[in-house]
């Protein structure tokens, strides 16, 4: 649909600009707040233009011992924790889903459909629903305050399994037969043929799952009590309530900015593969 009506073009641009402004303004304010000193942020009117304290705040946030008057982990450690959790969840989910989809599509084992439906049913049980029993299990296993406890309960994933199942089903049977004649065993077929053919789908899923993992809030809040294990997303909320005094907006906003950064980077870096993975059909 190509239309050439100047007013329509003008109107659509205005709508788009308003949309961008609505999304961008809070981010701008976050950025501005992160560039002023603590005092300035408590005075009205709030600044709308950046100040000169950016590097000072960055250093204080990343390496300082949290807000004044509290004893929290430095933000770099929180970012590291978040990164480990997000990567663990994303990579773990992809690995488990690839393998289970491989088993369901390519092997004829007893109760195959039974397992298929068992995986299917977990779709109805996200962490929030099973949070109490899952906590109990993790506690019993002694996994509180550990990376394993942060990631493993979030790894089993029906959606990703289904996605890979669909991907594998589009690969013609002759590909498998050809590989069998070439002498490739099942795992060789998996690594040499299936994985490369699912490359773009894996990338797309990685982006989605990394963000999902990075943004986890409730689960880390529940199972980490040690301040060295806090993740950055949960720490923002804690910072707001932490001190008796009024919130240190410059530090909090800097933390928020830092928390946004990795997901943005992942999206930007993997954009090409991401789009390909969601749209490409040719096998």
């Amino acid at each position, binding site marked *: 649909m190509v239309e050439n009506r100047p007013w329509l073009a003008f109107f659509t641009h205005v709508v788009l600009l308003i949309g961008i402004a609505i999304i961008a303004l809070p981010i701008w304010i976050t950025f501005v707040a992160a560039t002023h000193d603590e005092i300035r942020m408590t005075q009205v009117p709030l600044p709308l233009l950046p100040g000169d304290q950016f590097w000072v705040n960055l250093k204080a946030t990343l390496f300082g011992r949290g807000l004044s008057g509290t004893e929290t982990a430095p933000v770099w450690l929180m970012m590291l924790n978040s990164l480990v959790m997000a990567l663990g969840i994303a990579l773990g989910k992809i690995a488990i889903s690839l393998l289970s989809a491989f088993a369901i599509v390519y092997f004829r084992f007893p109760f195959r459909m039974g397992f298929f439906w068992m995986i299917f049913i977990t779709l109805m049980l996200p962490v929030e629903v099973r949070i109490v029993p899952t906590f109990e299990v993790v506690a019993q296993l002694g996994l509180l305050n550990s990376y394993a406890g942060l990631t493993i309960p979030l790894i089993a994933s029906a959606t990703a399994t289904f996605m890979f199942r669909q991907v594998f089903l589009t690969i013609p049977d002759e590909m498998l037969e050809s590989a*069998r*004649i*070439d*002498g490739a065993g099942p795992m060789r077929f998996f690594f040499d043929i299936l994985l490369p053919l699912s490359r773009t789908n894996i990338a797309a899923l990685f982006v989605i799952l990394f963000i999902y993992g990075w943004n986890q809030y409730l689960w880390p809040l529940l199972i980490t009590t040690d301040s060295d294990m806090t993740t950055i997303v949960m720490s923002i909320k804690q910072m707001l309530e932490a001190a008796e005094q009024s919130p240190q907006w410059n530090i909090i906003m800097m933390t928020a900015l830092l928390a946004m950064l990795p997901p943005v980077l992942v999206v930007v870096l993997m954009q090409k593969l991401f789009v390909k993975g969601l749209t490409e059909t040719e*096998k």
Partner: protein
Amino acid sequence: MAKIRLDNLRKSYGGTEVLHGVSGEIEDGELVVIVGPSGCGKSTLLRMIAGLETVTAGEIHIGERMVNGLEPARRDIAMVFQNYALYPHMTVRQNMAYGLKIRGLPKEEINRRVEEAADILELREYLERKPRQLSGGQRQRVAMGRAIVRDPQVFLFDEPLSNLDAKLRVQMRLEIRKLQKRLGVTSIYVTHDQVEAMTLGDRLMVLNGGYVEQFGTPIEVYERPQTVFVAGFIGSPAMNFLPAELSDGHVVLGNGARVPGGAGEGEVTLGLRPEHLVADEDGPVRVRVALMEQLGANTLIHGVLEGTDQEMVVSLHGIRDIAEGEVMGFSAPQDALHLFDRRSGRRIN
């Protein structure tokens, strides 16, 4: 190189049997074409030989070995699929080398073989391309190349040309034929196209509904089809079939006309190839012309046997001009009569 022996092979899916005891021997270096209509079990048979389907009953021997229980990779075969089944993420070179790499051949040996095959198939300049950057014919060649580099005892082809356009198909058919003769590898080629079967095969195995109808050279199959099915399947335009009766040295047609030939008594089906009828004003086979098709080199006359509603086709050389509704006479040489038992459909002369 090796002989292949099939011994009463059967295949069932669930409760339904789709191959009902297929036997036959394929000689060393021979190219046998398995031909038959869609769904008759050709691919199933080929895939059983390849080891991609299990054998329900019977035995497959390649060379001296009984291979029933062997994995495809251990049968020393190579297969070319209808959709080529090239690995899309590998280059042409990698596609051809993959099987050899798994077998653990040294790198230089792999490269030597791949390049040799590429030379034979004129693929040299495409070695570093991906399959999607190739035309259909080139992909076909890569699939062949992948088979050649393995240097197998047996080539198996499952309708390898049916995704190509008509012209390329004829060209590739000749190339496959030449290549097979040059390499001398025992080959089995599956197709539903009778022209492909006739031109390509040293021998044809005509399959119908899971039974072998006939196994012989193209000429045998054409000149002495053993069943009504084979007679109708091989040859174009298809053979005419007329219900008839044998009586003292003549074949009596439905309209009472008597064609000399045949021995014995009883109800038969008379088969007459369109191209074997000879225009003859006094001939016993009289056809009322309904429609003409001018093909240039010959003329097809569609009509009915006069006095009946049995449809017939006659093919005459050259360009003819015959009015619709006219009655033409034809005679049929004795050696052009194909007589089949009416009930069993088996040949009796």
